[in-house]
């Protein structure tokens, strides 16, 4: 545990730490572009230069690649350091187009922040900027603006060290250098490719899905859990801030998931997530069911609840197929209100799509439902099966073929989406989705993660948790 001094303050560093790691761990900020806590050290951007005090006036060196040594005295904000940072920023922005006004990254751009913090001066170069490729299709999902790129190579290191696709490289030399995919175009096959968009410290790597869709300062991240598989990665769902609600344009823009980014969670996903999770908007923005039905006939929710209670009360052998997309709170509510009345099985709401990767060594898991573990903890792992005398089935969530249900049984169906089965059920309740309520999922390793609501649900849509309490029928109240 060598003791070092940062800006005169004694700090206990670990033996194998760099100055950058020791400083950040003790609350001293040193700026960085190419360094990243989860990638190897490259040391090309030079913005993390600090002053090491020593005989003869000390010297400047980069913090990211400097191991700590006993008694080392570091200055992170001396006059020398500030002057060097300003020069470094002049170099880094030498060929940068400064087109923040049309750049998706503006507002969350490290280059923009550092320019304000450490440079603030216009370019001192009289030479024209090097022109380069705009809108280069790096893959089906990612566009590259080579003029904005500062060649930090975070994206390249990500494909070599994390996703292991080895799909990106630096072509050519000097100011001709370009980030390019390998000639066999394997970046399309990299299922973690979108992480390089978040890694990019500038606006060079852009999501095609998010391109020109929104300014980030109008958006707000709501902490959530990816329901794409049983890993349950912690994510942020970005949507329009309520205070910036649009009234003139399409109102759907106020209730749209603009993008999905990973939220660092060392217990589950680290700082990464897969591309499938980036496309969650497609899952949540399917057409919604918002009308309770009796055999396809619209009714109000009071009538639907009364009918369902009647069916539950009358049934001799009711079976429930419990959703693996229900939150732990909803599952507990079901268990408490109806668990004693029904024979319960956990069902898989969603099966892997054709061609979808079932599992890999990074994050992707074979079960494509977020809360199978939480549901099985309450209702067991037995696969659904129907005894011959089953006369009522409660189906909670999508993904059940009604043809597989006992033909004479009545059906109570709870579903969030507009699907043909809704009209075939004896009683149908539209229910809220994950983006409209708070709750927890338990992942396959038993880690519980919370999600928060981003949007308000429609009035006619029920929260399953409250609905189950309303449907509770005691054994004595049976009709």
């Amino acid at each position, binding site marked *: 545990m060598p003791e070092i001094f940062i800006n005169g303050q004694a700090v206990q560093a670990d033996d194998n730490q760099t100055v950058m790691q020791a400083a950040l761990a003790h609350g001293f900020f040193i700026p960085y572009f190419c360094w990243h806590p989860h990638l190897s050290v490259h040391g090309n951007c030079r913005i993390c230069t600090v002053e090491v005090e020593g005989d003869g006036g000390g010297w400047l060196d980069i913090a990211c690649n400097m191991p700590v040594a006993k008694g080392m005295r570091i200055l992170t904000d001396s006059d020398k350091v500030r002057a060097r940072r300003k020069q470094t920023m002049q170099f880094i922005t030498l060929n940068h187009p400064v087109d923040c006004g049309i750049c998706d990254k503006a507002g969350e751009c490290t280059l923009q922040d550092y320019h304000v913090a450490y440079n603030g001066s216009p370019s001192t170069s009289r030479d024209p900027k090097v022109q380069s490729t705009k809108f280069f299709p790096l893959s089906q999902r990612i566009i590259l603006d080579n003029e904005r790129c500062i060649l930090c190579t975070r994206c390249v290191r990500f494909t070599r060290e994390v996703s292991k696709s080895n799909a990106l*490289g630096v072509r050519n030399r000097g100011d001709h250098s370009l980030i390019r995919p390998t000639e066999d175009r394997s970046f399309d096959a990299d299922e973690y490719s979108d992480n390089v968009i978040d890694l990019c410290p500038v606006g060079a790597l852009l999501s095609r899905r998010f391109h020109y869709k929104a300014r980030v300062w109008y958006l707000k991240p709501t902490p959530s859990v990816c329901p794409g598989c049983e890993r349950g990665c912690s994510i942020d769902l970005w949507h329009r801030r309520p205070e910036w609600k649009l009234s003139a344009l399409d109102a759907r823009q106020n209730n749209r998931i603009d993008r999905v980014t990973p939220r660092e969670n060392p217990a589950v996903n680290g700082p990464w997530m897969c591309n499938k999770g980036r496309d969650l908007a497609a899952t949540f923005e399917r057409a919604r069911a918002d009308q309770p039905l009796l055999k396809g006939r619209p009714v109000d929710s009071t009538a639907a609840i009364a009918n369902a209670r009647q069916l539950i009360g009358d049934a001799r052998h009711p079976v429930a197929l419990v959703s693996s997309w229900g939150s732990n709170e909803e599952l507990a509510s079901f268990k408490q209100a109806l668990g004693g009345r029904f024979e319960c099985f956990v069902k898989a709401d969603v099966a892997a799509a054709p061609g979808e990767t079932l599992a890999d060594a990074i994050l992707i898991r074979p079960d494509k439902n977020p809360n199978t573990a939480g549901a099985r903890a309450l209702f067991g792992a037995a696969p659904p099966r129907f005894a011959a005398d089953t006369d009522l089935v409660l189906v909670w969530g999508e993904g059940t073929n009604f043809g597989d249900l006992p033909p004479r049984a009545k059906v109570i169906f709870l579903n969030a989406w507009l699907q043909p089965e809704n009209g075939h059920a004896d009683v149908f309740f539209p229910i809220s989705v994950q983006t409209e309520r708070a709750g927890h999922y338990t992942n396959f390793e038993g880690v519980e993660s919370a999600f928060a609501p981003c949007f308000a649900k429609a009035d006619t849509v029920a929260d399953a948790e409250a609905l189950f309490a309303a449907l509770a029928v005691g054994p004595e109240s049976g009709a």
Partner: protein
Amino acid sequence: MKHLIPEFDALRARFPATFASSLVLPCVRRIQEDRGFVADSDIDELAGYLGVPRVQIEEVLSYYTMFRRKPIGRWHLQMCRNISCSMRGSERLLAHLETSLGIAAGQTTADGRFTLSTVECLGSCGTAPVLVVNETYHENMDTARIDALLKGLD
């Protein structure tokens, strides 16, 4: 590339086991010497042999401008255009070569005999201007010597 593998094995024995990516440069040099350029199939085979990702070989080939990904003419004429040679008239000689061969620098004649390139310092300033034909230096060049030289190349 396959017939070069015994040579690569010998080279490999001189490198530490975890330094396969350091072998990329000597291997592609040898391939270009052998074939005249580095073919796409060479890249795939070398990537397989060394166990390094293909992209790392592509990076090396694009970083060094002397590597070629396409075949060139039988005779590769490289005219120096650095300071000493320029002061001794290499620009005029380059123009003469372009007229004689009917191609611009960077091009190959239609019959596949000549490729004309410009290069930077060849380390022979004392005998400027210098023209390198394949691996041979031709020093103190002038238009008459160039004409005589071209006549001798089939």
